[in-house]
């Protein structure tokens, strides 16, 4: 206090004009603020700010945050000047604003993507590269920019867009769909041979000779089944499936030629005593050349039959 008393007078004197100027400034600013507030209240009473449709989310957030700041600063002021916070009105207001902000947060999350995109567009001035909106259709690009007169005529007559496009274009281009990417055919003779050998091996593995050998050497108990030739069982299963379908759906399905052939072969196979004396060819596993019994049909090699000019079906290439 003593130190203040002596040195403080000089400080006070130097500070005095500044303080006066500041106070005057303060007074002017307060007057300006009151004037503005009075104008605002008049405007609000004159209903220049319509709020029937509610405020937008961003405006609400803005206002709430500002109010939060104001209340917080009010509280800090009170606390700094030694007041207590118990039952302070500002605390209740703060709590209310906080709850509202937290309730708004999920809405905010939902809008986050759109707002970010808008901000980015506003900042950079164009859409980003990965934006799917870039790929929306532009019908204006489809019209040719040749003759504007024709376009005007079309607009007057009010014809459909397709007609307009045709007459506006100089030459109508027929739409050619893009061809699929052709894949390189790489199969050499050796690979074909390998594939054939593999298939023959698989067939040989399931032949009766090999199966009996397997049964002989495996430890599993011997199963006695009323087993017919696997082709026959497969065909009979398919037949059963077809019959079930037909009866439950109350329709009759048509039988293709292939199906008919398969059925006939299955019948023939089950009626002959074919499997008693003829064993399937297991040369693929033993490595010998394939040989046939005398009364079996020779293995037919698939020849490419050139299809003579199909007049009705298909598309004939015009050379």
């Amino acid at each position, binding site marked *: 206090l003593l130190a203040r008393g002596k040195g403080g007078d000089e400080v006070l004197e130097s500070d005095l004009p500044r303080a006066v100027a500041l106070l005057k400034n303060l007074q002017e600013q307060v007057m300006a603020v009151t004037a503005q507030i009075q104008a605002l209240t008049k405007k609000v009473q004159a209903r220049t700010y319509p709020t029937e449709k509610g405020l937008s989310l961003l405006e609400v957030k803005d206002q709430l945050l500002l109010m939060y700041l104001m209340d917080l600063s009010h509280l800090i002021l009170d606390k700094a000047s030694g007041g207590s916070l118990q039952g302070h009105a500002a605390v209740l207001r703060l709590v209310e604003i906080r709850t509202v902000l937290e309730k708004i947060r999920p809405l905010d999350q939902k809008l986050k993507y759109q707002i970010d995109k808008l901000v980015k567009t506003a900042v950079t001035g164009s859409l980003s590269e990965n934006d799917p909106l870039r790929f929306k259709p532009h019908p204006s690009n489809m019209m040719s920019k040749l003759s504007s007169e024709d376009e005007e005529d079309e607009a007057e007559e009010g014809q459909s867009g397709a007609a307009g496009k045709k007459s506006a274009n100089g030459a109508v281009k027929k739409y050619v769909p893009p061809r699929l990417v052709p894949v390189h055919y790489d199969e050499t003779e050796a690979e074909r041979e390998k594939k054939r050998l593999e298939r023959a091996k698989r067939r040989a593995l399931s032949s009766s000779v090999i199966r009996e050998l397997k049964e002989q050497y495996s430890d599993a108990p011997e199963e006695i089944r009323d087993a017919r030739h696997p082709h026959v069982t497969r065909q009979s299963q398919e037949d059963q499936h077809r019959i079930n379908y037909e009866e*439950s759906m109350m329709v*009759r399905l048509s039988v293709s030629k292939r199906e008919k052939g398969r059925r006939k072969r299955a019948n023939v196979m089950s009626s002959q005593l074919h499997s008693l004396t003829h064993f399937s060819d297991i040369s693929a596993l033993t490595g010998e050349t394939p040989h046939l019994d005398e009364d079996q049909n020779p293995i037919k090699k698939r020849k490419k039959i050139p299809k003579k000019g199909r007049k009705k079906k298909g598309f004939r290439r015009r050379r």
Partner: protein
Amino acid sequence: YRDVLTVIFSYFKAFRLLQRKQMVIDVLHPGKATVPKTETREKLAKTYKNTPDVIFVFGFRTHFGGGKTTGFGMIYDSLDYAKKNEPKHRLARHGLYEKTKTSRKQREERKNRMKKVRGAKANVGAGQKEE
């Protein structure tokens, strides 16, 4: 020898949405040819105490060796429902429906002639001599 007509009960359904009963029919006719559809309809009418005109049978397939035939049948609640719900080709078999006889070529030519004329003009006739 008498023919026996069995209705396979596991496939018997009362299809209320289309106002009918549908079933799978097994006809046993040993030593004879396949039973014609009219006879099966009458037999079915007797068993279900209906008139044969609301009964529609179709899809008869004779098993290998003869003697047994399997097919499908539908019994409608009334003839009106039958006309509404039954497919047209089956109604035509009973004479309840007549198909239009215009050939496809004629229809397409008429369509092409109509393309040249705009608006609700009266008759785009059979103008075969168009000049």
